[in-house]
């Protein structure tokens, strides 16, 4: 790319006002018959942000995306893009472009014609179409494949065409519906990196729907977790992963090692948590709040916060005793399934090296962690 010219796609080109959120969704509700697919969802997306809506299938995330694209209308609430309400605006008049899960490439058109489609609909002059399609194809590294038909391309290439076809129009928002779901694992990981770098280079504002938590965390600036039509938590990947607002979010974003119990008396700055399984000693916990003693709660801990020891460590940190149930070698990591109660197993991880061979099935083991790493959820 010539150094003197401006990059082909920049957020500033489309900016109306830098303070205005690009997307502003206010309490939208969407019903399918008796089912409420989307229930009073509100969120904002800033310009240039990569925003992911994460949730299991049937969470209502695709409905949100389709309402942004204009294929569905909300039953209640409002939906603004660049400050303008999109209610009643048909898909062809919205400043958004959708990358379909199935790619939805036009099978009878070449790669070039597919990418040029949006420009042609807007009657852009053919010289300009040519130039912009080339820029878009350069961006997704598909230059030279203009005359191919979609059926002649690999899955990854089709994905790039779909992406180029959306971003050539310089939309205010690119909507991504499970963009990498159809790719195999290796290609998927490569495309995550590439999609993210294209987004950053072009300054695209993206809303991405996915059920893949790792993908969402790797690519997003912020993540919204949806479940049963509700949006439970919105925050940076780190926030949502490390400080999930409830057990559902905690379990959906990663492994959540849980232990039911009750809050006990205070111990200085910390409080004590008595596991329901009385054979375990009370554990020190730290949390903000004024919950009364005797209140039942569930303690949750991510695997990477847990350290394992063969001997009971001499520490004031919380310690849980258990027994190695299974050792799962997973390449660079080894996972351990530790029995910490009658029917309760925790998962811990260790880097696969010499020290990891210290533990084998049936060994007694002591799990300990810092009180600040554990989270408590009250019922």
């Amino acid at each position, binding site marked *: 790319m010539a150094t003197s010219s401006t990059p082909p796609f920049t957020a500033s080109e489309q900016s109306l006002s830098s303070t205005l959120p690009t997307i502003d969704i206010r309490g939208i509700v969407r019903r399918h018959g008796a089912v409420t697919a989307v229930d009073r969802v509100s969120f904002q997306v800033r310009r240039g942000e990569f925003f992911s809506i994460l949730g299991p299938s049937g969470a209502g995330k695709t409905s949100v995306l389709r309402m942004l694209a204009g294929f569905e209308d909300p039953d209640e609430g409002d939906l603004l893009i660049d400050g303008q309400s999109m209610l009643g605006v048909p898909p*062809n008049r919205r400043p958004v472009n*959708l990358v379909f899960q*199935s790619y*939805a490439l*036009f099978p009878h058109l070449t790669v070039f014609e597919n990418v040029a489609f949006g420009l042609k*609909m*807007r009657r852009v002059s053919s010289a300009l179409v040519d130039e912009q399609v080339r820029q878009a194809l350069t961006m997704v590294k598909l230059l030279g494949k203009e005359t191919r038909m979609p059926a002649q391309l690999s899955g990854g290439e089709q994905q790039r065409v779909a992406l180029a076809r959306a971003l050539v129009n310089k939309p205010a928002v690119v909507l991504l519906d499970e963009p990498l779901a159809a790719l195999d694992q290796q290609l998927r990981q490569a495309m995550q990196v590439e999609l993210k770098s294209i987004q950053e280079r072009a300054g695209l504002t993206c809303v991405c729907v996915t059920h893949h938590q790792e993908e969402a965390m790797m690519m997003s600036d912020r993540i919204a977790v949806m479940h049963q039509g509700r949006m439970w938590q919105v925050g940076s990947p780190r926030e949502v992963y490390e400080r999930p607002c409830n057990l559902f979010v905690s379990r959906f974003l990663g492994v959540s090692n849980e232990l039911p119990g009750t809050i006990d008396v205070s111990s200085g700055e910390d409080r004590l948590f008595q596991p329901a399984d009385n054979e375990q000693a009370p554990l020190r916990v730290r949390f903000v709040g004024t919950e009364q003693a005797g209140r039942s709660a569930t303690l949750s801990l991510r695997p990477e916060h847990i350290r394992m020891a063969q001997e009971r460590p001499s520490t004031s940190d919380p310690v849980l005793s258990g027994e190695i149930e299974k050792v799962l070698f997973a390449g660079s990591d080894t996972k351990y399934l530790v029995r910490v109660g009658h029917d309760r197993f925790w998962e811990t991880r260790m880097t696969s090296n010499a020290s990891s061979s210290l533990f084998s099935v049936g060994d007694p083991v002591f799990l300990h962690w810092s009180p600040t790493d554990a989270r408590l959820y009250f019922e």
Partner: protein
Amino acid sequence: MRRGSTGLSLVSGLAMLFLYGPILVLVLYSFNAAHLSTAWRGTTLKWYAALWHDEALLAATANSLLIAVISTLGATVLGGLMALGMERMPLRRQQIIESGLALPLVIPEVMMGVALMLLFVTLKMPLGLTTVMLGHIVFNIPLVTIMIRARLRKLDPALREAAADLGADSWQVFRHVTLPFLRPAIWGAVLVAFTVSLDDFLVTFFTAGPGATTLPLKVYSMIKSGVTPEINALSALLLVISMACVAVSLHLQRREV
């Protein structure tokens, strides 16, 4: 498996012979030099030549072609619009219309012919080329609709959404996505409708008036004065045209992506 397939080939061979034997005989005899068909008196092309000098036969051919072209055009437009319109209806209504569509295909064609004749007479329309064309449009609409609908069902709804998302209004979506996708099915339907119209006897018989004699009607009237080798030649030609149409139609539909 081996033994079973020998028996199977035998039965299918006999069935094919039963189906195509008469046609084969007809084609063979169109090259027979004999005037009275049964005995073989050497090969000739004179019956084909004779066709070219039969004014009445040529007029009937012209009628048949005109009727086939116009009725195919009418049926394709109407049937195609029907298929597109049906798609937007609630499923229940689509099913009702679909069974209604199948009806003209299964009711005896004689009934259809008589019914159409009665209709035209009631409307005081003089029977002629126009009424034959209308009759052919009627029985070709279901064929066209069913063929185009079958293709339309295979169209991924995401393609049309993608076009709309990229700025196409509903006409542009039709023009740039739906129509190109339907093209093979439309051509297939055109050729089938054309063939059916060209071959039709019953509906034509009841709806044609004087001066609207088509090829099948002409053949029928020629046969009343005895089977001549000329008819064999004519039939052989019709057969070739029909088969060509069907072959092209099948080819187009197989090429669907």
